[in-house]
């Protein structure tokens, strides 16, 4: 069955640095991959989507890459701020699956002033 791995340990970084989060998957490549942010007690919020034929996507301070050979996506937050502290979830969507999301367990990011 499909397995999605995200760094299980929290990532602690200093304000202003770039945070890099990893999402690895096994078996089949998805049609596309999404990144969500989740704050405690709240539902996930969509951030970025990248398709299987795209290598990189950017939105403001966010950048996501997708390597279907390595079966890996990297999510970068540049010039990080304490307000970026949250759990970041990667989610895969496979074609023919009604766009249902298959989530990783998430990585908790803490940005310290």
């Amino acid at each position, binding site marked *: 069955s499909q397995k999605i791995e995200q760094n299980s340990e929290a990532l602690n970084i200093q304000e202003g640095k770039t945070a890099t989060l990893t999402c690895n998957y096994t078996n089949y490549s998805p049609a596309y991959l999404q990144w969500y942010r989740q704050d405690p007690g709240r*539902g996930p919020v969509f951030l970025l*989507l990248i398709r299987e034929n795209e290598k990189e996507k950017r939105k403001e301070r966010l950048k996501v890459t997708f390597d279907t050979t390595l079966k890996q996506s990297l999510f970068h937050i540049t010039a990080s701020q304490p307000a970026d502290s949250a759990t970041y979830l990667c*989610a895969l969507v496979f074609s023919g699956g*009604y766009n*249902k*999301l298959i*989530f*990783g367990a*998430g990585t908790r990011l803490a940005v310290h002033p």
Partner: protein
Amino acid sequence: GAGVSQSPRYKVAKRGQDVALRCDPISGHVSLFWYQQALGQGPEFLTYFQNEAQLDKSGLPSDRFFAERPEGSVSTLKIQRTQQEDSAVYLCASSPLGETQYFGPGTRLLVL
């Protein structure tokens, strides 16, 4: 505009009780999803509706779980004879048949 809302936000049930969780999606959104999120884990797919039709219920963990969306808008997830392992956050998401899903705040269910 209003986002996805869910009620109740918190529910404590005694083992064996039936519970009903409500989801009000964003108006006009065709797709509606239910997910279950255990503590420290990512959400797991339960079921999917396109309008009033339940097209995928492959993620429902047992026949004690039942979902409906009779008029293609509000949806209810019902859990019969709750068990302790049902304790989790239940998330609802809606989408205008596109790729982005908009999540509600979730209902936190605790079964004692």
